């Protein structure tokens, strides 16, 4: 294979899918990481793993699943590096919602304000359309935890958006 030809072809796939992947990354990370950097990591990883793509699902579906896993792995390694369990509990942010500070936010902005665990479940369930069982498997939690986090996220979003 001609390396230049491969990269041009892959660039076309990048152009086709980057908005969706970057939006997913931005929403999942909130203010905790650099979505540009992680998006680049995801496409490099996709390039390295093209050999595992069998064409049984649409390329976008394959890439999307790879991206979700990469983001969740990044989140876990970040939480581990910080020496805490990333269970989505962030008292400071929750208190911030209760005491104000969400004025004029649109939904995108409000999602950014959510605690990590609640934000990830909300994005995966309500934006991306995954089921609680799938989310539980990907995040290593129970479906009940996923449901609780989703409800928590929605109620926080309501509080933020109604200010």
């Amino acid at each position, binding site marked *: *294979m*001609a*390396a230049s*030809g*491969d*990269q*041009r*072809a*892959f*660039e*076309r*796939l*990048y*152009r086709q899918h*980057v*908005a*969706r992947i*970057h*939006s*997913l990354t931005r929403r999942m990370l909130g203010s905790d990481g650099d*979505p*540009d950097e992680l*998006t*680049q990591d995801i*496409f*490099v990883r996709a*390039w*390295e*793993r*093209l*050999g*595992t*793509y*069998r*064409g049984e699902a649409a*390329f976008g579906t394959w890439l999307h699943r790879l991206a979700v896993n990469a983001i969740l792995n990044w989140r876990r390694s970040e939480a581990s590096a910080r020496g805490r369990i990333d269970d989505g509990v962030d008292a400071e942010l929750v208190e911030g919602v209760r005491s104000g500070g969400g004025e004029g936010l649109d*939904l*995108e902005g409000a999602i950014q304000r959510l605690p990590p665990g609640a934000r990830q479940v*909300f994005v995966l369930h*309500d*934006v991306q*359309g995954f089921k609680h069982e799938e989310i539980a498997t990907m995040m290593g939690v129970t479906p009940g935890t996923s*449901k*609780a986090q*989703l*409800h928590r996220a*929605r*109620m926080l*979003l*309501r509080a933020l*958006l*109604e200010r």
Partner: protein
Amino acid sequence: MDGHLGERLSALVDGEVAGPELAAAEAHLTACAECRSAYDALLGIRRHAQALDDRPPERDLWTGIAARLSEGADVVPLAPRRRRLAFSIPQLAAAALVLMSVSAGAVLLATHARRPAAAPAAFSSPTAGPIAGLASAKGVESYDTAIRDLETTLATRRSTLDTGTVRAVQQSLGIIDAAIRQAEAALAQDPNSMYLNSHLEHALGRKLEVLRRVTTLAAAS
């Protein structure tokens, strides 16, 4: 029902409540303005979330990606599918009919939906297509070689097969060949189509499986 609905509100919004619990929740919603208001708000948030638009990054990230690819991240070519199919000849014939129907629609869609003339010149080259370049060229070549070998073998053993089997096989192969020709013709117009490349490879794989199966059958006769 004690108190407010709490987490059951989200379950209601998602349609996950049924039976007596649903009846009780609906009765509560009818009576409780607070829960009703929360239900409406959560339903609105979910609908809004489902309709969010994707936005590209503010800066072009490709340059950084390309630099990292050039540093040595290798792509592993796709191998030809080796999945063994345990289908009978009539099943293969039926599958081929389905394949042809799907192929015809898909190729029509692909050829009408795409406008290759508008694509950048760099992507119009048959050698630069995503699959042809990234993965499938060697796979398709492997299929062609394997198919030729099996056709040669089968030609020498055809007399060992009964006429019904020969007819079914010819029908299956004719349908699959039509699908292959359609895919090749569409690819000539849109060589960068990932779907068409994948579709061609899939059709070749089908043909290979039919030939393998009937060759095995002929050898056992």
